[in-house]
């Protein structure tokens, strides 16, 4: 055991002797976790700024009312050019008006997420119960068009509400002959419209949207963003760090220190154990760094810290085992570098480290579970967002440990001292 610990100590010393490793262990993961967490959290919930161009060809009180309703329906929508401010958040580059061509260009360049065109005669159309079409232009993007469309839908319902009231009211009185002449009937319709508008303004019914669980100190946006990015980026950077072990092993083989160790009175188990433990410690350290970022940002990590640690432990172990299993194929440092980049960058998004798997098609969710990352993310999500406890995440932990067992068995059987 003493010798194993010495090997671990030596490997850690070698790792930290290259100061560049600190960049990849600390700086980049911390920055990435924060950036991804903050921005994806915003994009996913409803508060980021989402620019929407509005071309109001009607310019009527009703169209203004529609826009107001739109803002209410989704507070993250910034309607351009109306909501432009001195900071120029509409990114208009000086233009005061937006024409159809410009709106299209802005969409294509992804300045805006959507463009809404209110047709001329909108108000008259609505009031006279004529069919009116509001056009919504979008680019395909993840989740955004749905958000814009739902908001527009809700706003239109509001605007339509008063018109619908006036319309049904007018129909009622005329069908039942309650009011004698056309003039009084249309006056009645107008009064109903105004009264309905007034009732709408009082907001008789509201929808209260709240996230389940304990309110996190960092706010719900940060919670959902970092709740995904902390384990996600953690899982990815653990791969970078641990797969780096393949490079280190190839390097030791090239400089013959591995062979020298093999001729020392060490058992194979001691030598491999030391090497594996060293990488595992680095991977665990990597997770700790990223989780520390999450804790510092004030996100809730769930109710069962022990389970969280166990998942991180099982995941890191599985990645360590995988890297040693793959290491048996690796012939030199360049190959190790190429493989670790390929693997980390493929397994991470596949397993939902970059975005939650909820947003990908079912088939991709299933395929994604060939990546250990997916199992870890399932468990982390359950623990962080869904108040799960250890018994709830036994399956993912078991799968990760299974991967570990198979990969280690392979690695130990196939390991060669010489390349």
């Amino acid at each position, binding site marked *: 055991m003493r010798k194993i610990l010495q090997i671990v100590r030596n490997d850690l010393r070698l790792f930290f002797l290259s100061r560049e490793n600190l960049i990849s262990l600390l700086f980049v993961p911390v920055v990435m976790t924060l950036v991804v967490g903050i921005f*994806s959290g915003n994009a996913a919930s409803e508060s980021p700024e989402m620019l929407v161009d509005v071309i109001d060809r009607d310019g009527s009180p009703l169209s203004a009312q529609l826009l107001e309703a739109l803002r209410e329906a989704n507070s993250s929508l910034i309607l351009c050019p109306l909501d432009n401010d001195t900071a120029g958040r509409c990114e208009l580059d000086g233009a005061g008006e937006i024409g159809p061509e410009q709106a299209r260009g802005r969409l294509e360049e992804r300045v805006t997420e959507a463009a809404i065109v209110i047709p001329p005669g909108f108000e008259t159309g609505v009031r006279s119960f004529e069919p009116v079409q509001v056009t919504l232009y979008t680019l395909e993007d993840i989740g955004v068009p749905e958000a814009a469309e739902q908001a527009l839908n809700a706003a239109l319902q509001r605007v339509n509400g008063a018109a619908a009231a006036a319309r049904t009211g007018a129909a009622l009185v005329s069908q039942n002959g309650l009011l004698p002449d056309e003039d009084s009937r249309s006056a009645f319709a107008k009064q109903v419209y105004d009264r309905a508008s007034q009732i709408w303004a009082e907001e008789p019914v509201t929808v209260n949207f709240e996230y389940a669980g304990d309110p996190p100190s960092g706010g*719900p946006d940060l919670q959902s963003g970092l709740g995904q990015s902390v384990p996600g980026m953690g899982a990815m950077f653990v791969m970078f760090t641990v797969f780096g072990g393949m490079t280190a092993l190839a390097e030791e083989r090239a400089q013959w220190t591995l062979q020298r160790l093999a001729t020392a009175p060490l058992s194979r188990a001691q030598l491999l154990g030391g090497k594996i433990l060293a990488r595992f410690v680095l991977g665990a350290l990597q997770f700790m760094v990223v989780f520390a970022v999450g804790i510092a940002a004030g996100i809730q990590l769930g109710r069962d810290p022990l389970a969280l640690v166990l998942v991180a432990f099982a995941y890191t172990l599985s990645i360590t085992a995988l890297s040693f299993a793959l290491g048996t194929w690796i012939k030199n440092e360049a190959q190790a570098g190429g493989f670790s980049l390929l693997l980390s960058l493929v397994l991470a998004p596949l397993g939902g480290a970059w975005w939650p798997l*909820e*947003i990908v098609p079912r088939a991709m969710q299933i395929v994604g579970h060939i990546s250990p990352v997916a199992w870890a993310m399932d468990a982390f999500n359950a623990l962080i967002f869904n108040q799960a406890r250890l018994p709830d995440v036994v399956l993912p932990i078991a799968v990760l440990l299974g991967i570990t067992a198979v990969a280690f068995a392979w690695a130990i059987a196939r390991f060669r001292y010489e390349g």
Partner: protein
Amino acid sequence: MKKLWTIAWKELYVRFTDRNLMLIMIATPLALSTIMGLAFGGLGGGSSPVTRIPVLVVNHDAGSEFGVNYGDIFLSILVPGTDGAAAAGELPACSLDGGTKTGTESDQFSLQELTAAQAFGAEQAEALVREGSIPAPAADPGSAAYVDSAARSAVERGLYAAAIIIPEDFSRQLSFSPASPDTGRTQVTVYADPGRPISAGIIGSIARGITNQIATGNIAIAATLGELQASLGGPAMGQAAANIDFASAFACAFDPGSSTISIDRQMVRRAQQENRAALVLVVVGSAQAMFFAMFTAQFGVLNMHWERRGWTLQRMLISPTPRSIIMGGKLVGVFISVVSQLVVLLLALTLVGSLLQGRFILIWGDQPLLILIAILAASLAVSGFGMLLAGLVKSPEQASVFTSALNIGLAALGGSFGFTLPKAISQLSMVYWGRTTFEMLAVGNSDIWVNVLVLVLQGAVMYAIGLLLFNRRFENV
């Protein structure tokens, strides 16, 4: 000049015969783009990747004094065939002449495609508790608090993406009563799973939509009856009311299909609607291509540090070849490597896109000349960045870690990782400029000159600074 091409050719040869480099240059970006294309583009299209969101609807509504239960109606919209809805009597069909039925069917279809809703009551709550999926709520079994708490737990536990809770006074508050002509206030609550913010957000919008529709009908009733009462007076009103079939009179106000306003949703380009998967490939593929082109350029330029270590650089320098030719040859070699890599990736992604779409399509647009210009500009920027780094770092070991870290950062900023940052931040990364250039071409927009200019300028400036620093560092090799 011949020597320059010899050196450039050697660089190219070394690069493209190295299987490990090909892994990074071609295989990784291709694999990543395909994964992202499949994740976001769907196989062969399909409207939204988010479908069948599991949602609970808890209906506490006790109904109005007239026996109408809007909570049941709410439920029946989300959960077709619910018993409660039938018992409460569905609203009669709207039969207004002016009503255009646009969109009704598609709305219904998309609602059912989007959600997998389930009515949730005391029975279901107890079942969940029994099977141990959720902890037993503190409240009395069967009470509203019990069901609420169970629904909340089920969402917290991630069993459902959201729970919609319709309050007991929902119908009462919304219903117009001649005694109190003003409507009261009521609130529908949506509990959302923070682990599935996107699905939950969609459920929030749907709940708002249905609530608004029900409110629309009731407000129509309230406004009309209120106005009738005001203009006809109480007794006349009461007499009139006795003869009116209110239910069918206001049916249209409850029917979303009767709205005369509809949304016409259009993609910016026709092509987009047809080739969704291909378009996603363009977006992610161009970002990945830029990301990995940075690696290629850096391997190339930084290789000079290794060559110095292995003395092949010195060997070249002591040959009767001017320094400028050696540097020139290497840089030309690196530049052509990057160009070739981009060309190969663009072609390969065209194939992947065509496979996903099931027919051959030019996913990068149909302007080969402009595409070539975009490739050249992007290659210049990327290899300029490599040159700058080569000038900045001291040793190849330092370089490899440092550059990977920088590349990942720039790629994340520029949108290679599947999320979009605010444009002002994105623009710091050349990945953004390269990516958007290719995107514009893909949707048929040929006005790429600002992007090209930015790329070329970036490249030129970085080349200049890099060369200066590099020469200084290598003066005494």
